[in-house]
């Protein structure tokens, strides 16, 4: 048990660390519990932002499942457990893992890997060398890497845009959804094993990587 903070209506949680790990657990509650207990949460920007900072100490926050969460870190790993609202995460080398974002997700890492089990909205994921793994995304997807591999699952309701220079791309489409495909590659291989149609569009561009689309 840490220290409890009330949440002003419409506020977003912002967590900033240099190297400390960030763990956020979405659960059935109306306030925020932060550990270690001596950590403070400031209310900024007329109550729109709740901010907590740490250099190297790890933070664990228990939050309501509807809370929107932003995290900025240089090398700390970021782990969002359970459900949260929308997420915005930027890290240089930290590893990002998310169980479920009910809203949109925008995750950017330079060398860390990105893993999202479920996203209920649109999802943007960007990593230079890290792997991107998006289990199932309800909305539009933009996933770009330079050399990291991309694996993603789409509900097939909105556009999927994947780019990689040399990584491999694997797209799993929900059963019964038929994508229109736009592949672009220089030396890579492309393959589609699912029915094609006009339910939504998959744009996949690579220089030397391979692209594979399959039904889930």
């Amino acid at each position, binding site marked *: 048990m840490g220290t409890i903070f009330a949440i002003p209506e419409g506020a977003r949680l912002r967590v900033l660390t240099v190297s400390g790990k960030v763990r956020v657990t979405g659960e059935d509650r109306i306030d925020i519990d932060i550990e270690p207990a001596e950590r403070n949460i400031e209310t900024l920007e007329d109550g729109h932002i709740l901010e907590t900072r740490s250099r190297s100490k790890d933070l664990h926050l228990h939050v309501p499942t509807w809370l929107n969460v932003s995290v900025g870190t240089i090398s700390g790993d970021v782990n969002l457990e359970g459900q949260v609202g929308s997420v915005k995460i930027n890290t240089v080398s930290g590893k990002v893992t998310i169980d479920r974002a009910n809203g949109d997700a925008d995750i950017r890492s330079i060398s860390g890997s990105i893993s999202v089990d479920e996203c209920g909205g649109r999802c943007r994921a960007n990593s230079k060398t890290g792997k991107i793994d998006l289990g199932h995304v309800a909305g539009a997807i933009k996933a770009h890497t330079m050399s990291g591999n991309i694996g993603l699952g789409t509900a097939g309701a909105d556009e999927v845009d994947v780019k990689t220079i040399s990584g491999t791309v694997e797209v799993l489409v929900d059963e019964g959804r038929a994508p229109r495909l736009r592949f*672009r590659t*220089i030396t890579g291989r492309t393959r589609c094993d699912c029915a094609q149609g006009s339910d939504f569009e998959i744009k996949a561009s690579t*220089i030397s990587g391979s692209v594979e689309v399959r039904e889930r």
Partner: protein
Amino acid sequence: MTAGATKVKAPTAEGAVVFTDLTGFSEFTAIRGDEAALEMLTLQERLLREAMDARGRIVKNLGDGFLLWFPSVVDAVDAALKLQEKIDELPAEDGDMPMWVRIGINYGRPILHGDDLIGHDVNVAARIVDFAQSGEVLVSQACTENLADELPDVYFDEVGPVVMKGIPDAVTLYRAVRP
């Protein structure tokens, strides 16, 4: 500095610092060769100069990108978006090299060092571009605070805080979008 010497304040150039980065260029060069790579760079520079429309200055050619400076952040954001729009209009045939450019913009008072720019605001701009996806224009909060609603057709979508090594405050970044 010797005792009694007068400290001369370095000249600054208030404005927008822009970094562009052509991603995948090394791989393209390895596959298609130096001649094709040179053609790609020439095309990129032509599109860039058209987008800039003499409103800013190419400070430095960085090989597969540029350092640019604009006195007006409005012109910087508009030119960056125009460059991405021009790239989007290029023919997209399978087998052609896609031109993937990402752009980062910061606003401040960099120091003039000959024709070059140096300082904190330049360093921040260089780090912003690292977080951009290809096709994106990312700008710092310092940019949005100086825009004063002068780009009514552009909206700025927050992409969250970025903690940068050696910089005490997090920088909030926005994606500039012209629908």
